[in-house]
């Protein structure tokens, strides 16, 4: 399967990326909870233990702080570790390692030591996993200098962002939205490589800019399709990288459409969506024809019941309504 296009799931794309990295560089290894024998809690790493063995596919104890710390040490020692954390909620146990160590060592050592660490983790809601497994905290990490935060939403990014992250000499956190793993689609044989520095216009339009990333990209695209039926051409921007933000792509779009709706599964207070809104104010104020709108999750711990979970999350109908509000329609 090297030629033409092929049907692939997001999960398979991530697995292929890991496999490719393991094959390409002996310094690369994967560790995390249940990544080996169980095949990963989202079945991303299924089969890798058999192929690469326990030295390179390492099941860890249930201690995020310990195995993230071990990953930092390995990176300092010249390895290229991929650390998987089951979900962003659990990464809080490793917050000290990530924020106080991984993000700071290059700076505190005066550039003598780099931490070429990649941490993958699942994020987001939609699978009825309740509040302790469903939050979208990538915006918090995007606050931290010294980290690079990427959010692959498309199959192409799922397949190729890992290589770019491993090539980066500094810590990169990859956030994979849980609702994307089962998404399938076609990936052309000549896809990739991709950068981890720029946002991408996923759908061009002239009337309003929908800025989003990760799991809500497809909700925004659905909303754009809905808006198109009413003659509203929405431009959909996939941020792809939350830190450093590619503000210029957002600003040039907003300068064209004069209206922006930010769609973020994170909460709105003190959030990434607030940051993007502020960047638009700073960079495109005189081009705005309407206040920036935001569609974010309800400010509650994500509920367990399906209908409440759905109600708490950004949905296409709300995005359509927000877009229309910017158009005074």
């Amino acid at each position, binding site marked *: 399967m090297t030629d033409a296009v092929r049907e692939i799931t997001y999960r398979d794309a991530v697995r292929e990326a890991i496999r490719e990295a393991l094959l390409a560089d002996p310094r690369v290894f994967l560790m995390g909870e249940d990544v080996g024998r169980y095949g990963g809690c989202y079945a991303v790493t299924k089969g890798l233990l058999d192929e690469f063995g326990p030295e390179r596919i390492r099941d860890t104890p249930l201690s995020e702080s310990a195995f993230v710390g071990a990953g930092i040490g390995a990176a300092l020692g010249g390895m290229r570790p991929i650390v998987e954390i089951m979900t962003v909620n659990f990464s809080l146990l490793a917050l000290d390692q990530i924020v106080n160590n991984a993000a700071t060592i290059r700076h505190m050592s005066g550039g003598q030591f780099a931490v070429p660490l990649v941490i993958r983790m699942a994020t987001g809601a939609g699978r009825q996993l309740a509040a302790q497994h469903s939050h979208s905290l990538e915006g918090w990490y995007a606050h931290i200098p010294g980290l690079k935060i990427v959010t692959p939403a498309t199959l192409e990014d799922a397949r190729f962002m890992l290589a770019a992250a491993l090539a980066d000499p500094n810590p990169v956190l990859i956030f994979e939205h849980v609702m994307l793993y089962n998404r399938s689609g076609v990936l052309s044989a000549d896809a990739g490589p991709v950068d981890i520095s720029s946002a991408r216009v996923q759908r061009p339009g002239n009337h309003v800019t929908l800025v989003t990333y990760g799991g809500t990209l497809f909700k925004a695209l659905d909303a754009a399709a809905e808006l198109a039926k009413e003659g509203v051409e929405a431009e959909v921007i996939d941020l792809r990288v939350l830190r450093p933000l590619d503000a210029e792509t957002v600003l040039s779009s907003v300068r064209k459409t*004069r209206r922006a709706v930010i769609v973020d599964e994170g909460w709105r207070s003190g959030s990434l969506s607030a940051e993007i809104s502020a960047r638009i104010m700073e960079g495109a*104020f005189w*081009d705005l*024809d309407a206040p920036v709108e935001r569609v974010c999750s309800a400010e509650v711990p994500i509920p367990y019941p399906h209908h409440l979970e759905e109600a708490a999350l950004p949905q296409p109908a709300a995005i359509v309504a927000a877009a229309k509000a910017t158009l005074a329609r």
Partner: protein
Amino acid sequence: MPSLGADMEAGTLVEWLKRPGDRVKRGDIVAVVETQKGAIEVDIFEEGVIERWLVEPGTTVPVGTPLALIAGAEPATVASAAEVPATVMPSPAPAAPPSVSPLLEPRTEVGRPRVSPAARRLAAERGIALDRLTGSGPEGAILYADVERAAAGTALRHAAPKRLDLAEMRRAIAAAMARSKREIPHYYLSTTIELTPCLVWLETTNATRPPAQRLLLAALLLKAVARALGEAPEFNGFFTAEGFQPGTAIHIGTAIAIRGGGLIAPAIRNADKLALDELMAQLRDLVSRARSGALRSSELSDPTITVTNLGERSVETVFGVIYPPQVALVGFGMPVERPWTAGGQVVARRVISATLAADHRASDGHRGALFLADIDRRLQSPEKL
């Protein structure tokens, strides 16, 4: 939809210049309508707050159709180029107090329109005055598209020769004049008026004035007609199905030739009450706006008589055709030097022919003669005009 002439049956609303919630006062321009006479700005006679629009831009409606509801101190009334009784209607619920959104009220009181940053910048780039714009955004905010529309409208109004559709105007004149000759039993009177006192007075008065402030003979003629009409009400007003209706004020339609053909006669309103300088200023303004196609509805809707002044490089005498439903037209020819007798001597004097075309249904020749003679008498004492 104001009637901008007896021949006008319908007009097309081109643009609203005020929006619901805006406070308006007498004289404000609220809309632009397209008529056979070109794009006409509709000014308003009511004071109050526009409650809602009743007609959307682009719609053609018959004369007399209410265009907007205005809530004011009085019970809500319907916007029109009022003072034309047929177009002023009481609201369906006269007792109801005006309902104004609490969101809108403070904004109009503060008098600071909401303008989006993009609209503000575009307005600055295109030189559009924001206070004249109608906002289509939330709470009346002026948006980019509003400025774009206004810029397009301004461009159209600036491109006046295109705005004035001369073929349309010709059709309108044809309809009105045919009706006049069909319905109005005209009679004609003529007299010759010595201009020496006027010319001497003008020369003295203008000697110390800069050119822009100098008075023209036309102003004296108009003022003399206006004052004489005060004594001759049967020449000032309209002849309708109910018979002759004297005008409640003296609004003199001033015939202005349009370059390239065509004719329009907007009113100098309350001409009898204007000082000569004011009248002159209004005449200048009217001529320039008539030629650029930026007349106001009230100026077209309510002339109570027409004066046509052929001026220099013309002919001696004009016998006019009355513009229905008016009942009289006063015509002045070209001032000429002619032999004149004064004190038993034949002397050379500047004189002007003054004619009256009048509707015999409303007046008789004797009254017409007195009216023309009164104009003559007043022109012999220009300092009293």
